[in-house]
């Protein structure tokens, strides 16, 4: 399987995803032998970001974002995820090589962190009613756990360094996010506000309450009730 894919020289992103979920091949091995490993990893991260954005899109609905802007917001969110990933990999590499003095090859770090995003391809399941939020949390734990395991398997990383990276990994993520978070969040919110066409309220309850209040104040007309209460025009799936 691997040989045939490598022989074709260009691996498809679906091959990596299928290999990961079916266990038919090692996705890291596949990626590291592929000529187009950079674009594959970026595709994985963008698709995972898109899926995660769909899973959390209730905020866009609550803010009554129109369909075109809704799609734009999802795409921007996916791209921002890729930017986040690149910053994260760079800082993680600096942290590993400069502070832990581990001989971590940047290509492998790029690949393993990218592969650890694959569980988030299921992020759209966050849209599931009631079970969605717990499923998203499980996916995050799965993703972080994978990253720790994969980093531990890297060549050039000694056991104690691997343990340090795995343990400190999560802390460093928080540290990195604290450093870059404010700026990134501001950029992300600005981009989302621009694409969604309104100042997004991130709290669903607040958004719905504020919009209801605004509508109540602006629309004094009483509803006209129909005879049978059935919709004559409404179309829904």
């Amino acid at each position, binding site marked *: 399987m691997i040989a045939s894919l490598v022989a074709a020289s260009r691996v498809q992103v679906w091959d990596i995803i299928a290999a990961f979920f079916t266990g038919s091949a090692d996705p890291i091995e596949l990626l590291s032998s592929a000529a187009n490993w950079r674009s594959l990893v970026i595709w994985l991260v963008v698709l995972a970001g898109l899926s995660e954005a769909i899973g959390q899109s*209730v905020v*866009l*609905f*609550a803010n*009554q*974002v*129109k*369909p075109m802007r*809704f799609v734009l917001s999802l795409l921007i969110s996916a791209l921002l995820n890729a930017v986040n990933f690149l910053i994260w990999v760079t800082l993680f590499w600096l942290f590993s090589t400069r502070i832990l003095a581990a001989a971590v090859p940047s290509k492998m770090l790029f690949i393993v962190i990218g592969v650890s995003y694959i569980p988030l391809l299921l992020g*759209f*399941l966050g*849209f*599931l*009613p*009631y*079970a*969605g*939020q717990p499923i998203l949390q499980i996916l995050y734990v799965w993703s972080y756990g994978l990253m720790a395991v994969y980093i531990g398997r890297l060549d050039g990383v000694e056991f104690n360094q691997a343990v340090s990276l795995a343990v400190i990994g999560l802390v460093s993520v928080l540290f990195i996010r604290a450093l870059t978070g404010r700026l990134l969040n501001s950029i992300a919110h600005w981009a989302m506000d621009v694409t969604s066409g309104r100042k997004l309220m991130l709290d*669903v*309850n607040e958004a*719905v309450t504020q*919009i*209801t209040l605004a*509508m*109540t*104040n602006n*629309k*004094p*007309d*009483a*509803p006209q*009730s*129909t*005879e*049978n*209460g*059935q*919709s*004559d*025009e*409404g*179309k*829904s*799936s």
Partner: protein
Amino acid sequence: MNFIVAVLSLFAIALVMMAVLAPLESLGWWAGWFPSPSADRHGLSLDPVTGPLSSDSRFVVFLTGIGSMKAEVHIPEERVFLDHLIVRLPQIEIVDDIYPYSVTNTALTGNRIFSAFWRLVFRGKEARRPWGLIGNVRNMFQVMVSSDHRYGVMYDRGTTEIVLHGLARHGYPFGSGTPVYLLGYSGGGQIAMGCASLVAEKLNAPVRIISLAGVFCSDPGQVDVEHIYHIHGSRDKVERLGRIIFPGRWPIMKNSFWNQAREEDRVTIIHMGDMTHNGPGSYLDADTTVDGVHSYLDKTVEEIAGIVTETGASLPPIPEQA
């Protein structure tokens, strides 16, 4: 073997996709993506009462179980139950034309893109074919949408509007303070919990919930609602499932909305003996008798009549409305 695995996989994927898409109708409605002819997202300004009112005037809004696919009550047991209730309580107006699993009150067999599919499912249901249960599954997912705190806030606004429109259709005198009882059967219990406090706020009238074997979560609406009557039987596995799958219903979750309401004595649990959720031996069973004379259905009707007329023997007094 491979064929069976393939079929089961397809079935599982279809089920997951159905669940994932379940919130789309209510969220799309809220976002203004779909037209909403019978319910709107705006605040209602309702006409004040014009005619004289009797002091024992009451309105009961029936929120059907998840087996329903039409706005009018079409499940024979439910229809017989409502007919008995009307005979027992002639002075009460019953709103029985609400489809609570759509925020636009659009029944599955109504004016929808996939209505032809749902009509097929409906025929299967009437012929007691297995695929007839697809409608139940779809409605069950809507119950989950209402119970999800992210979606419930929008879904419950939709059901509030359709309840208010239903009351308007049945001549509810807005502004009169006439009490309203939301009678939710099975999954309809969750819909009632979700919209009760909003309905009360809009009507400025007492709104009480009667949960007939309701399957519901610990809902924020339970904090504000005046009183909840929860009717259940010891052999009702579906109702019991609700107590298990929603952690907020567990007794150890002391701070949940449900347990807060119970702590404040705003919940009355009514035990119905060994009644089951549906079928023979259920709350709506007109054949099985309690004492050789009165059927399970009679007992259920009597309990609900006692609540609505506030004469039930085991019921606590209802506080005066401020």
